[in-house]
């Protein structure tokens, strides 16, 4: 027991210390939490806080569940519909470009089909946490393109839920097409049931719990999130989708905003354990074998994001600077990529996915803010032909 306590406490402290150092140079926290796991894990020389990543297993899973529960809770359907079809189209363009690029890239390099789909998702979906933080820090909340950026993020968040369901047969243990389709049907059915509850049953869910007491509210809804995630997992749907969907349902209740506020510190704590635990699974010795792939993926994402940004700016009649703001701000990859990678590892896919996605997220965490804060200067250097 004492070992596990030291592991958890050490993980949180080292993650926080590293992230604190990084904050001074504008580095997002999520990749640094993960880096702490790499540095203080069993694969690197020096201090090993955690010998067995399994020590953090349950807490890391709680982190994953709370991350997705909160994502569902914060999900804002009106933000999606108020922007209209144009915003949906922009989000779709982003996803289509980045994911198709990622998929073809991974397949071309000879990764398996399941791995390629995981990589496509990991390089295709931006991190809501990093992007929203970046636009806030760069003081761009009033810029017209920020609305589009946030719209893209919302579309991507929603897409992730569907994508997790679609990946289920690939990540599951289906050995034939029929059973794969069966698993997909179960996953989809579960989503539909939850979606129906979200649409018509939210008030009933809200009534189950007294909403005037913070303590009871927290205990009840964290319990609900974990329970639904567990049931989802039992049914062969991933715990991640279950947590996201119950988040969507709770978001429709009157107490949604308070629950979101109450769950936030819990989410931050356990999500840090999750990112640290993911770092533990990365063996830097494996990095050598994926260096070229990581570099290729970063360059690919950069190019596709700039292309998507330029097209979007043209649709909205934005300036060149705004176009690059969109391109560079949405470069941030974080929790969603790491969630996909950890699910892939848990499902026993190619283990090189962990160092690949880990290094990719880390590099974009540096490159994204760096480019984004200099988009005005960069825009001036681009030859001015008609956008």
């Amino acid at each position, binding site marked *: 027991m004492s070992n596990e306590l030291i592991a958890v406490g050490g993980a949180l402290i080292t993650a926080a210390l590293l992230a604190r150092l990084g904050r001074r140079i504008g580095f997002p926290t999520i990749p640094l939490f993960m880096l702490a796991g790499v540095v203080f894990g069993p694969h690197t020389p020096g201090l090993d806080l955690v010998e067995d990543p399994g020590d953090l297993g349950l807490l890391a899973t709680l982190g994953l569940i709370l991350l997705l529960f909160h994502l569902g809770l*914060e999900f804002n359907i009106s*933000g999606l519909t108020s922007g209209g079809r144009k915003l949906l189209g922009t989000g779709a363009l982003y996803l289509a470009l980045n994911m198709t690029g990622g998929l073809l890239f991974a397949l071309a390099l000879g990764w398996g089909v399941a791995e390629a789909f995981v990589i496509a998702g990991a390089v295709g979906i931006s991190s809501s946490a990093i992007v*929203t933080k970046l*636009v*806030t820090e760069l003081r761009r*909340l*009033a810029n017209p393109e920020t609305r589009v950026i*946030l719209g893209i993020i*919302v579309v991507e968040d929603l897409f992730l839920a569907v994508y997790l369901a679609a990946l289920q047969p690939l990540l599951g243990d289906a050995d034939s097409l029929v059973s794969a389709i069966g698993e997909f049907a179960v996953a989809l059915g579960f989503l539909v049931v939850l979606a129906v509850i979200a649409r018509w049953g939210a008030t009933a869910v809200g009534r189950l719990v007294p909403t005037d007491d913070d303590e009871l509210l927290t205990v009840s809804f964290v319990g609900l999130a974990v329970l639904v995630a567990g049931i989802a997992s039992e049914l062969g749907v991933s715990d991640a989708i279950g947590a996201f969907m119950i988040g969507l349902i709770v978001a429709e209740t009157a107490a949604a905003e308070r629950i*979101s506020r109450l769950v936030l510190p819990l989410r931050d704590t356990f999500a840090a354990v999750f990112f640290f635990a993911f770092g533990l699974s990365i063996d830097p010795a494996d990095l050598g074998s994926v260096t070229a792939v990581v570099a290729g993926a970063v360059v690919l994402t950069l190019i596709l994001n700039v292309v998507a940004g330029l097209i979007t700016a043209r649709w909205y009649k934005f300036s060149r600077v705004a176009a690059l703001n969109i391109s560079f701000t949405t470069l941030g990859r974080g929790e969603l990529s790491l969630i996909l990678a950890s699910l892939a590892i848990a499902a026993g896919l190619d283990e090189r996915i962990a160092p690949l996605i880990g290094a990719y997220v880390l590099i974009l965490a540096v490159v994204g803010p760096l480019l984004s804060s200099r988009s005005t200067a960069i825009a001036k250097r681009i030859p001015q032909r008609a956008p």
Partner: protein
Amino acid sequence: MGETARRARLSPAEVTEQSMPGIGRRFDLPLGDDQSIVTVIHHSGRRDLYVLAAGHEEPAATASLSDAQARTLSAILGGAYFKPSVVEEIESVVGGLLIDWVTVSEDSRGAGQSIADLEIRRHTGMTVAAIVRDDDAILAPEPTEVLRAEDRLVVLGRPDDLIRFRRHVIDP
């Protein structure tokens, strides 16, 4: 003066509100002259202010405030600490209830008379909620309280009754 102020007063329709997914809500207040102030209220309670000028890509000024700082600033802007005399008579209406500050002058009808003598509530429908006199506040004054010149009265009532109140108590 009072009438101009009322017309110039901001109607809520001039403020536009937008939700910012993952961040909070955004409020735009146009200032005229192609300027506007954007306030972003984060879920965390943080407030960001942006001063925008048309034709400029970068905001002219930005500021970031904590919840407590934002409340202090709003109190300052609202005139809680210092009210310039020109705008003294701008009233605020909350949910159909009007709250206003009026100052009794030496030649006001009500100067030197008590609230009961003036029968303020019967004649005007308004209630004197407080009297600010020499930096002291008399909350919920007794009917026997005599109004003096330089008293600042905090009055409550329906917006339409304010004119009657002025005519009955403040005007010469």
